[in-house]
């Protein structure tokens, strides 16, 4: 059975696309070959900066013959019907067979297809694959219309077996497939022919091309580690960079160079970022001091001077880059040491979002909220406010302008230089966190207050202007922000009424959005509402309390239909509810990832208290664990049974059985036991709930399992005797009410 070798040689393929492209080539080709009847034993794909290669082993030499029989219309069917059948089957009239069947004489078409040689199928398949290749971005070149990632120069496509090698005949827009390729752009010789994969790989290596990306990466990692080690240093590992660099060279030559003495005082992150982003250099660290002292670059060529010229050039470029970085760092330090005032002033002219105002306005809001949140996270309010005021100052710095990814980190350095307390500096670095599901939650109380305030300001702001995420669109990363809030609250087991803070801050946003057209009286009123929300818990109560007071005041602002205050008053509760529901959705996703079912959370949410996320999660976790026990599962079945019987009876009778079950009407022992059990469990459950101990509440509930099971085993609820029946239904109602104290078990599936 022949082996197939395909190589698509082009101008340089972007490093980030190579791996995926090799996989796509393999998948698309092998799928299509199998579809056409050509099975194979194995396939491997490779990529270099200039080529995609696919090797398929033990391919069928030709696709198998096929025979298909199709039943058509009766022989005496109208001519039209027969013609239609002929068209569909693709056979001629005289090729049809007439066969006797119980339904009379019926026409049959026998379609026999001869197998086709592999070369023919490969040619078709490869052409389709090339023409429809899923490049993230593709282009045309010259006068042609073919699209490829960069101009495609040659196609090598051969089938080889014991008899020899044949070139698959194929011509795509003037590029004719052959058995020839070429080696390294600079170190390679003339084009050469190959007769199979082993020959191909060996000849490439001889001509200075390592075909396998993994082999190139290994080679780079090995040499880099060895060079660093030999100098008594260590390589700073960077898998992403390694993969990228392996995609930039066909023949990796690893070189280590010096970083000028002048630059060693720069923060290591700045060195590392500058070298990686601009030059794709690896950093080499002194393990004793933690300083980055050298760099490693990977060239694509061996030279007579062993890379000396190349290294000198790279060093020079690096020096120019680092002089820029050093210039930024020193300028920035000057501003930082002067208290960063200049940067904060600049932020007054930087728009955050058109409606939500400037960065300075945003910072003022965050500072206010951070102060309010400080008691929740255990931070000093003054310090939380101060931290929020300077946390984003680095956005004006030259370093962050140059390297946006260093925001926060530079903030920490600069806040330290400005002489702020260490907690404040740390908050500058940490307040963006967590940036994703796997990013760490900030540790310090000040950091957490600022981080929460930052995210809540963003969320309430975009909710206030109705820019919510839709479908796959979430340009302001609001889902991430909400998850961040959730993770910080849970990590700190923070007890807070989230909706109270949402209401407060939404009102502040509404105030900001309307400030231009609001009267002084209206502004003062909304300010009053904001301050009172913490007392009243939610917006509605605070709003009404303030409006009540206003009535008696002279020159009180308009509060009637269509007035600004009324409009805001109507809008805030709805937006707040909607945002809290968004938090609950994100919470469900988060907990689902941790193995907690969404219906369990729904069951807990039904009971209210959804604004206290930490408690909500504790309840949900306890319930989730309970349901996994035998008691829990059985109790749930018992509850459902009670609830079903009760609901049916209530529907039938048109009354609600909710009161008055009396033990004196209990006829059986099982009933009496159940009464006793409920009497014992109810106060326990109530106390546990009050004491915020959901596990204890569920344990108390579990004590009902046996009595409930026994009750249903022994007792007929719908008794003939109407008094007995009513009493039993009322007893079921007690079961239901007791269970529902803990969670809405009707929401649970299964």
């Amino acid at each position, binding site marked *: 059975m022949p082996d197939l070798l395909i190589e698509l040689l082009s101008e340089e393929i972007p490093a980030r696309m190579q791996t995926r492209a090799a996989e796509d080539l393999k998948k698309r080709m092998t799928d299509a070959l199998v579809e056409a009847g050509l099975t194979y034993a194995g396939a491997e794909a490779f990529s270099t900066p200039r080529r995609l290669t696919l090797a398929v082993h033990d391919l069928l030499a030709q696709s198998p013959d096929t025979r298909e029989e199709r039943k058509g219309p009766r022989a005496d069917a109208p001519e039209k019907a027969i013609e239609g059948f002929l068209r569909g089957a693709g056979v001629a009239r005289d090729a049809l067979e007439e066969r006797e069947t119980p339904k009379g004489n019926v026409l049959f078409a026998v379609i026999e297809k001869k197998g086709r040689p592999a070369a023919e199928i490969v040619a078709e398949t490869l052409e389709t694959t090339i023409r429809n290749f899923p490049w993230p971005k593709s282009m*045309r070149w010259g006068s042609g219309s073919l699209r490829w990632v960069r101009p495609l120069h040659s196609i090598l496509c051969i089938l080889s077996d014991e008899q020899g090698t044949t070139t698959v005949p194929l011509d795509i827009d003037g590029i004719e497939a052959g058995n020839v390729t070429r080696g390294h752009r600079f170190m390679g010789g003339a084009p050469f022919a190959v007769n199979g994969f082993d020959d191909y790989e060996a000849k490439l290596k001889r001509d200075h091309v390592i075909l396998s990306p993994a082999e190139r990466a290994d080679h780079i990692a090995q040499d880099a580690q060895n060079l660093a080690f030999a100098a008594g240093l260590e390589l700073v590992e960077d898998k992403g960079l390694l993969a990228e660099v392996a995609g930039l060279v066909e023949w990796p030559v690893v070189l280590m160079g010096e970083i000028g003495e002048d630059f060693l005082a720069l923060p290591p992150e700045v060195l590392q970022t500058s070298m990686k982003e601009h030059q794709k250099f690896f950093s080499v660290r002194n393990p004793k001091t933690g300083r980055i002292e050298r760099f490693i*670059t990977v060239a694509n060529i061996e030279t007579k001077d062993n890379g000396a010229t190349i290294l000198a*050039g790279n060093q020079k470029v690096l020096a120019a880059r680092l002089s820029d970085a050093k210039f930024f760092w020193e300028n920035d330090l000057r501003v930082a040491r002067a208290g960063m005032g200049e940067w904060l002033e600049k932020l007054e002219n930087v728009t955050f979002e058109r409606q939500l105002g400037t960065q300075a306005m945003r910072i003022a809001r965050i500072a206010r909220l951070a102060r309010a949140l400080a008691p929740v996270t255990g931070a000093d309010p003054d310090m939380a406010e101060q931290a929020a005021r300077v946390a984003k100052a680095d956005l004006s710095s030259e370093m962050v302008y140059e390297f946006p990814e260093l925001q926060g980190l530079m903030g920490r350095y600069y806040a330290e230089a400005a002489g702020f307390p260490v907690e404040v500096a740390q908050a500058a670095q940490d307040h963006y966190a967590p940036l994703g599901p796997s990013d760490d939650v900030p540790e310090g109380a000040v950091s957490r207050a600022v981080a929460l305030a930052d995210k809540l300001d963003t969320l309430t702001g975009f909710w206030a202007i109705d820019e919510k995420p839709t479908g796959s669109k979430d340009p302001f990363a609001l889902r991430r922000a909400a998850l961040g809030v959730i993770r910080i609250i849970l990590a700190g087991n923070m007890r807070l009424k989230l909706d109270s803070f949402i209401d407060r801050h939404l009102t502040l946003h509404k105030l900001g959005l309307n400030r231009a057209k609001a009267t002084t009286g209206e502004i003062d009123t909304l300010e009053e509402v904001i301050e009172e929300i913490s007392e009243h818990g939610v917006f509605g109560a605070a709003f009404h309390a303030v409006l009540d007071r206003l009535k008696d005041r002279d020159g009180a602002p308009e509060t009637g239909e269509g007035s600004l205050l009324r409009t805001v008053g109507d809008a805030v509760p709805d937006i707040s509810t909607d945002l809290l529901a968004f938090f609950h959705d994100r919470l469900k996703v988060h907990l689902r990832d941790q193995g907690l079912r969404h219906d369990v959370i729904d069951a807990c949410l039904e009971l209210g208290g959804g604004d206290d996320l930490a408690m909500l999660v504790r309840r949900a976790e306890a319930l989730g664990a309970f349901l996994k026990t035998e008691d829990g599962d059985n109790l749930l079945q018992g509850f459902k049974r009670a609830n079903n019987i009760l609901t049916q009876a209530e529907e039938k009778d048109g009354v609600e059985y909710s009161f008055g079950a009396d033990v004196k009407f209990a006829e059986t022992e099982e009933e009496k036991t159940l009464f006793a059990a409920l009497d014992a469990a109810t106060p326990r459950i109530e106390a546990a709930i009050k004491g915020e101990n959901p596990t204890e509440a569920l344990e108390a509930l579990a004590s009902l399992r046996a009595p409930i099971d026994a009750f249903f085993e022994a007792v007929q609820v719908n008794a003939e005797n109407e008094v007995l029946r009513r009493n039993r239904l009322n007893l079921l109602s007690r079961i239901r009410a007791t269970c529902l104290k803990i969670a809405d078990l009707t929401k649970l599936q299964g």
Partner: protein
Amino acid sequence: MAPGIGKGANVTGVIAMSTETTKPKSFQEIILRLQAYWAAKGCAVMQPYDMEVGAGTFHPATTLRSLGSRPWAAAYVQPSRRPTDGRYGENPNRLQHYYQYQVLIKPSPPDLQDLYLGSLEAIGIDMDMHDIRFVEDDWESPTLGAWGLGWEVWCDGMEVSQFTYFQQVGGHDCAPVSGELTYGLERLAMYVLGIDHVMEMPYNDPQAPIALKYGDVFRQTEEEYSRWNFDVADTDMLFRHFEEAEAECRAILEHPASDPKTGKRIVMAHPAYDQCIKASHLFNLLDARGVISVTERQAYIGRVRTLAKLCADAFVQTEAGGYDVASAQVPA
């Protein structure tokens, strides 16, 4: 097709003929070698455009000529102005006025990469001693409504050129596709000549009776323009000129194709495009003065892009843009 461009061009032969591999001695020698090289490869060596532009791409020989079906091959030096990059002549490699070398060939020849590498050899970069890399860098000009795919070319880690296959210009698909090469001349020359500060670079032959350095020619102008760009330029006037250029560009294009005086069909794509270039440079000046906010920025860029698109629309209605006078239509 011009001789030498496209299939079969013998890169090494030309280099041997022109320069051997001797190192150039001055900034101007590098320019002269590039001119000679691309002339030998069949390009029309053109002169800089006589207006202020931000990059060689703005020269109509690139922007407009990359449109339409007619073959084209041009190479030229273009003085380029980037007001925000001014550093009063003090920064070793940042200038508010610098030179680009620009090559545009349509359709892009299959051996464009080899031709390009040949040009590096021509200016004294020995391919056996240096590490040349093509690193992904897709080009987009929001002001020109243009984009293409290609690379930045690295020599020993330094970006020495931009290499782009134009896909769209002024909102029009490029068919055929042009290949564009842009060399940042100062940076490239500093590298080849081994100079650390641009102002120290020999401008002419250091052995010449009156040897001039780059700083002798440009230090003073860098200072003067830096001051003017950043602090002095009259922003009210610049805003007004921007509006005027925009209005004139539109007005020019609103004239019917048929000229009442000569009776000829004269679509005034180039005069209109001049106004578009003007608007673009005025925007850059305003940007350097720091009077354009982040949100306004996008709006201004959008306005220039609209002009560029209108000019592109007009150019494809001209003969150079592929308009067929005989059949009076743009070929499909």
